[in-house]
Each structure stands twice: as C-alpha cells, then as structure tokens.
C-alpha cells in the first residue's frame, strides 16, 4: 500500500561492473534488446505523429490526391479563426467542470467511505461498476434515461411539474448533460484512488492528535489532507489529461452540438478532418491539443513528486 516512486530501485540484477572489465556487447545490449519489440510496436504506431506535423504544413485533403506545401498557412488560419478559440474555451470548460466536480465528489465520498461498516464494504465494490462501462455505452444509457418520451428521469421530473427538460438538445443544458455523464463514469475512479489513500493512512499521528485534543477540522487540514494529496494528484492527472481530450461522450451525445456548444478541440479536429475532408487544416487543432496535454502533464507530474516527498516527511 502507498505511493511508489519510479526511481531506479537498488535491487537491480546487474550490479555495477568494474570500469576496466569489458562487458560483452550482448550483455550490455540485453535490456534494449528485450525492450525493442515493445518499442517498435508503440513507436511504429507513433510514426503518424511525425507525419502529422508534416501534413499540417500542407493543404492535403481527402478529396484530391495531390497536395502542396503551404508553410504555416494552416496554423495562421487556425489562430485567426473564431472556431479555434471557441474550441479552446469549450475544451477548458469541459475539462475543469468535469475534473473539478469529480475531485470534490471523489474526496467527499471517499472520506464518507472511510468508516468500515458492512454498508461501506459493499459500496466500495459496487460503486466502481460505472467506471467499467464504455463511455459511449454510458452515454447511450443516459440518453435513454433522459429521453423525453420514455426516459425514467423525465417521468421523475414530471412529478415536480417539469416537462420536456431539454438536456443535450439545448445549448444551455448540453454541457450540463455531458458533465453529468462524465461524472457518472469517472467519479468512481477518483473515489477508489482516494479510498486507497485513506486506507494507507498511518494510525499513530491521528491517535496523537486525538490525545492532544486537536479539532477534527484541524486534524483534517494539517494531517489527513497532506497525506492524501499524492493520491489526489494521481487522480487529478489521469482525469484532467483524459477530459481535455474527451471525444467519445461528446461524440455519442451530440457530435459537438447543438450548434458548436460542445465543440472541443478533439471534436473540432475530427469534424474538420473527417466531415469536411480538410486533412491539413484539421491537424494544427490536434497538435495544439497535444502540446497542451504535454505541458500540463509535465507540470502536474512535477507537482505530484513534490507533494509525495512532503507526505513522506519532507
């Protein structure tokens, strides 16, 4: 139990060789050779990434077979386009509203689950079910539930005199609906990570705090939260990175609509590339997204290593 740092472990099989004894090439190359197939398979599939940078500088289109190099035109066109800035805004809004809510709910439910009773033991098992359902399937389920003619939620709302709540069909409520589905699927992820953190908490500092008569809030703020922070960062990193790129839920829900309400960068790139067939034009959108993901994940991983050190006692 606990967080594990990925620094080279001391128990490695080949202890440091003497500088002067010559290590046979095959022994030295062994780890690389063992890793080669996995790297070939993954990097082989990443070759397209380099192709993506190249094609973003061309006017390639699925409609015609010939294309020519047009320099930074696609990039300039993107940065001067209202659609792009709207997509950036939607991407940020979606990522923050889903990840933010999931973190708050995750922490809250995990803390409520920390008391061991028969009820919480069962819940810890069954609450992860939604996480296992494919996001697309989850979207389908919620579309059924919110359907205005057969949906159970519509029937429930009717009791309170609310009829034909628009859900994903209105620009005003589409984001709310997508966020709700995202939370339904992914909040369990945050919950079980923080539950694992709660279970790994050492007992003695809390007993000491109790003996000293510290208030519950003080203990939580100065003791529990810092110890849980590394776990929360892991959850945050995974959730934020995925929600910035969300495609499945939005695609299955409205394909980015109504209008351009849910057009985030992923959906925009898809629409430009596959719907409008403008391949070269779509690539800057997704390369820009990749850049953001990279920067944010680097920053957060650094933060995580820091809080982990602090939780381990500076």
């Amino acid at each position, binding site marked *: 139990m606990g967080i594990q740092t990925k620094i080279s472990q001391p128990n490695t099989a080949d202890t440091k060789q003497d500088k002067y004894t010559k290590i046979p090439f095959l022994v030295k190359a062994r780890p690389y050779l063992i890793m080669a197939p996995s790297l070939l*398979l993954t990097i082989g599939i990443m070759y397209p990434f380099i192709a993506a940078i190249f094609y973003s500088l061309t006017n390639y289109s699925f409609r015609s077979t010939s294309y020519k190099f047009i320099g930074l035109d696609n990039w300039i066109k993107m940065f001067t386009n209202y659609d792009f800035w709207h997509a950036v805004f939607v991407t940020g809004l979606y990522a923050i509203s889903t990840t933010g809510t999931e973190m708050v709910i995750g922490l809250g439910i995990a803390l409520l689950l920390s008391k061991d009773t028969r009820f919480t033991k069962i819940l810890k098992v069954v609450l992860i079910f939604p996480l296992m359902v494919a996001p697309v399937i989850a979207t389908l389920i919620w579309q059924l539930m919110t359907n205005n003619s057969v949906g159970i939620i519509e029937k429930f709302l009717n009791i309170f005199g609310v009829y034909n709540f628009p859900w994903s069909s209105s620009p005003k409520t589409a984001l709310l609906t997508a966020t709700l589905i995202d939370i339904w699927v992914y909040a369990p992820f945050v919950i079980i990570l923080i539950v694992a953190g709660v279970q790994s908490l050492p007992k003695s500092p809390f007993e000491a705090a109790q003996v000293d008569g510290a208030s519950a809030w003080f203990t939580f703020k100065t003791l529990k939260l810092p110890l849980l922070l590394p776990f929360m960062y892991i959850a945050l990193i995974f959730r934020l990175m995925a929600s910035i790129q969300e495609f499945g839920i939005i695609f299955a829900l409205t394909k980015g609509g109504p209008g351009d309400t849910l057009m985030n960068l992923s959906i925009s790139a898809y629409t430009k590339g596959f719907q409008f067939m403008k391949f070269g034009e779509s690539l800057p959108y997704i390369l820009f997204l990749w850049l953001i993901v990279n920067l944010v994940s680097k920053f957060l991983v650094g933060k995580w290593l820091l809080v982990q050190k602090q939780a381990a006692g500076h």
Partner: protein
Amino acid sequence: MNTKKLSLLTEIGRNAILALWAIFALFPLFWMVLITFKHDAEMYTTTFIFTPTLENYKAVLINTNYFKAFFDNIIVSGGAVLVSVLVGVPAAYALARYNFKKKEDLAFQILSFKFAPEILVILPLFMIYQKIRLFDTHIGLIWVYQLITMPLLIWVVRGYFEDINVEIEHAAQLDGYSWYHVFLKILLPLIKPGLVAAALLSFIFAWNSFTFPLLLSAFKVETVTVSVLKYLASDTVHYGQMAVAASVSALPEVILALIIQKHLVRGLSFGAVKG
C-alpha cells in the same frame, strides 16, 4: 446526551449521502437491464410494472449483426492484450531489473502514449492504413490498440517485478538455473495474479475503446461500441433493443471488474498507487 445525539445524526447523514450516491451510480444500470425486458409499446405507458418479454434480445442477438460485432470485439481486444503481454512483460522485466542509459526516459515515453490524443494518431493513420491495407482489419486495430494496452501492462507489471526480492533470482542462478528458466519458472508464477489482473484491465480498456474502431475500421470489422451507435441514428427507435445492445456489452466488464477487484486500484493508476 447532546454529543450522542450529534454522532447519531452524523451517522444518519453519512449513510444518507452514501445511499444517494449509490442510487445515482447504480440505478442507471439497473434501469437499463430492466427495460431490456420491456415491449416497445409499453415503454411509453409503464415504468416498473409490465409483462416481461425476451423479444428485444431476440431482435438484437439473432436478427442483427450484433453477435458478429461482439466477437470482433473479443478478437481485437483479446489479440491486443495477447500481443501486449508477449512483448510487454519482458520489457517490464527489463525496466524493473536492469540499469541502463535512458531507462526512465524510455519508461515515460511509453507512458506518454497513453496521454497522446487519439485523434492525433488516427488522422495520419487513417491514410497510412489505407495505403498498407490495414484499414478495417483485425490486425490494424490490434496494432493501434497497443497504445491503450501496452503502457498499462508495462507500468503495472514492472511494479510487480520490483516487488520481488532480487535475492530469489540470485539464489536460483546459483542453483544453476539459466536466466530464462528463472524468468519462466520462478518470476512468472510469482507475478501471475498481478499479471492476470493487468491483462484483464487492459482488456476492459481495449473493449471500451471507441475512437479507434470508429475511425480506423468500417464494415468488415465492427466493435460493439461502434455498432450501438446505429441504434441512436436509426429513424424508428427501438429503446428496448438499444438497452439490450448496451447491457450485453457492459455486463461482461462488470464481471471482469469483480474478478480483479483487489488489483484494480494499482492497475487503474498504472502502478502509482499500490492499493
């Protein structure tokens, strides 16, 4: 007296909030399974009380190509996991046991594939796959699924290798076992529970994958996640059949998740949290 009352109240409050959350999380699944037994005609008029029917199951499983999609999904996801296990487990071992230049860089490079936007890979790959005829094939999907299954497998299994004391290996080597004997006869059995859990979890992720099969295959190879979309697009909506399609694809995963429950936290966090 007051503190007693207060703690009783907090207890009630705690359980009430948990119960509300449980309803939110589980009711949709329950309701989905429930309406798979409902006639289309009764959808509009009844909520919980109706005469159950198996018509929807018949319609989806026998009269459409849903079964084919289901098996395509098994082939593609299972194949992807198999490839990842075969090449990923040795790589995980190398990352756990050897010190070599650029080791952490390589490990993080593999992890970064998980965070790469799928559309970024798909756009150029769409073109390349059509040129080298991997578009709409099982192998094409199995290959691109490596981006889902490989990082997870390598990172999780690496952690399990690191948990094993290196002395065990040294002892076996002293007894005259060659390195592959040590690997196959001693290490693999030791990490087996973790390996199985990691493989099953990456199977679930591959099974749930949507963007890759949507855009890199078409008619010949169709996964369940893509085929359910048809129920949304069609003009005459059969809600019961939609629910059947969703349920049949979702329930196997819930069962798999129950099997690997103990290893789930570790797998989901790619080994960062040892739950």
